[in-house]
């Protein structure tokens, strides 16, 4: 119970940070609170929110997946290449292939970690990021591809209703996904095993949890989420381009998770907190665009936010350790 209360307190702080940012931006630009801009923020949140689901699972296990962004781009490029080179125009088939490919990449990441015993997922997923970058360029022959089937673009392009230009379908999917994942992590045996494995891997193993399978599951799911993000990105921009695999999408996903209460030391993090983190990043980026802020300033602010988030994680870990020491002393 105590843990839950401290988590809620932290998330209250995150909500407050989000509110303060929104107020500041609303005062700086009167268009910020227009219904259409709020819908734009939801659209801008969804891509990172897909990636952050997988990233959160990996972070809970004290791991990391640095290949999520490149995986998303690769899956999008794979769909583009299949459409261009093999004439596959069935959106359902393209999306299915993308999800399987993304999942397979995640499964390989998990296998490298658990079965081939690579020392830390940082190494394997960083390597995988480069592999996927190259693969994305290879399958598309370094060309940008557009004109995807409407069904592929549906997730990132479709809206419902008329308020503010329509509520984005992609964000509705995100909300549903986050609720499902929240229930999964808190109410199912596998979900709890993920927290256990992140809290203490050896103790989990000794208590009968197959930690290798749990970790492989997390990385596979992370790959599937990356594939969904790739599909979403096609709907948003209408194109895929292998060169985009170098973009720091993974940094945004990590930042969202850490801002939302996840920890590099594992065992922590919630879907609600991660959603708040994603919204903060999206509001920040939206604000940069609304105020036409230079890249230089954008980089400084985003960098500071990430440093601040990690600093908060360190402070939280220190406070937890102190609390445990005090409790043990009593």
């Amino acid at each position, binding site marked *: 119970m105590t843990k839950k209360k401290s988590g809620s307190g932290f998330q209250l702080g995150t909500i407050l940070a989000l509110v303060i940012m929104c107020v500041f931006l609303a005062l700086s630009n009167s268009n910020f609170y227009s219904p259409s801009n709020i819908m734009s923020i939801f659209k801008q949140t969804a891509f990172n929110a897909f990636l952050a689901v997988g990233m959160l699972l990996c972070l809970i296990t004290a791991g990391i997946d640095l290949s999520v962004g490149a995986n998303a781009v690769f899956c999008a490029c794979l769909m583009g290449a299949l459409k261009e080179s093999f004439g596959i125009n069935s959106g359902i088939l393209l999306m299915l292939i993308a999800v399987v490919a993304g999942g397979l990449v995640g499964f390989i990441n998990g296998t490298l970690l658990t079965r081939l015993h690579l020392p830390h997922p940082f190494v394997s997923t960083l390597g995988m990021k480069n592999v996927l970058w190259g693969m994305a360029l290879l399958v598309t*022959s*370094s060309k940008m591809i557009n004109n995807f089937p409407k069904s592929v673009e549906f997730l990132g392009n479709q809206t419902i209703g008329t308020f503010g230009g329509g509520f984005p379908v992609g964000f509705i999917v995100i909300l549903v996904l986050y609720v499902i994942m929240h229930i999964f992590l808190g109410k199912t045996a596998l979900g709890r095993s993920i927290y256990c494995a992140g809290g203490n891997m050896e103790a989990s193993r000794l208590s009968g949890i197959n930690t290798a399978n749990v970790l492989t599951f997390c990385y596979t799911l992370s790959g599937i989420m990356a594939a969904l993000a790739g599909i979403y990105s096609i709907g948003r*921009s209408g*194109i895929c381009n292998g060169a985009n695999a170098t973009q720091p999408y993974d940094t945004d996903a990590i930042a969202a998770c850490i801002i939302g209460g996840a920890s590099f030391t594992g065992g922590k993090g919630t879907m609600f907190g991660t959603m708040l983190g994603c919204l903060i990043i999206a509001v920040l*980026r939206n604000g940069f665009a609304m105020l036409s802020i230079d890249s230089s300033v954008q980089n400084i602010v985003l960098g500071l936010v990430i440093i601040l988030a990690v600093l908060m994680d360190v402070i939280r870990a220190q406070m937890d350790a102190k609390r445990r020491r005090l409790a043990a002393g009593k």
Partner: protein
Amino acid sequence: MKKFFALTMALVMALSLMACGSKKEEAPAESTNPPAEESSGEQEYNISVILKTTSSEYWGYVVAGAEAYMADHPNVHVEVKGATSETAYDEQQNMIETDMNNADIDGYVIAPLQADMVANMIKGQTKPIVAVDTNIDAPEVLSFVGTSNEDAGKLGGEAAANLAKERGWEEIKCIEIAGVQGDSTNEARMRGYAAGIEAAGGTFLHDEIQYANAVADQAVTCMEAIMQNHPEGIAVICANNDDMAMAAARAAAGNEAYANTVFLGFDGIQSACKSILAGEETMSVCQAGYDMGYQSVDAVVRALQGETLDEFIEAKASIVDPDTAQERLELLQGYLA
């Protein structure tokens, strides 16, 4: 683990031996067969072509042009290389450094990622060097093949502003969705766009430049912000590349105020031609990548043969619009076929 290590080592050794073996086999072949130089009467040349990257469609055309020269001239061997991306400055630095010390290379074609850095690296080089796409301000560089990004941008800016007038815009305002801030190509194109828009009597909104890091999804975010800040519409949205122009046009689709907006891209790649034909992106500035590749190798060969080169060899930029998109598309498909 030891077995795996041993196997890897064995593989590496085997490959090394194979590599050594193949060289040994080549040597007698050279000695028994008369060299092409003697048989055809033409001097053989090894040209190193170091591009900004080879990982993009545009640079693929430059590669195709350079390789086409090699196909047309069997006595010229062209080796094309490029960094993994247009921001991998250190990779290109290493490539240039390595090739500058390679005695087998007779001449160089360089598309510098950072022209000033390359100018320092080639100091004292006596073999012919030709700059392509972006000029290098150094006495060692005999010629520059290309159109400056600034001139090409100006051409596009003027064409976009004029089209906007034809579409009924009375006030020609232009906002750029830019690439990577600080990147020399981005800055040059930006200056060109601004000059072109202003030359045509429009206003380039310098204070409202949006930086989207040359990425389509960030361009969508920028376009959404532009529509929030300018609900009345903007006459011209120019982007640093076609990815962003297409994404911006897509984001504005359905917004009545932007129905007549001119979306100007850069590069004129195949997907842009398709987008223009589909009525999404309006027009694109294209540089003659294939011609640049071909002409730059030709210039180095001519320099090696003792010819004095012009300081500037123009590879003209042009505009792709709905009237020329189909023709351009077929041309590009032919280059890569």
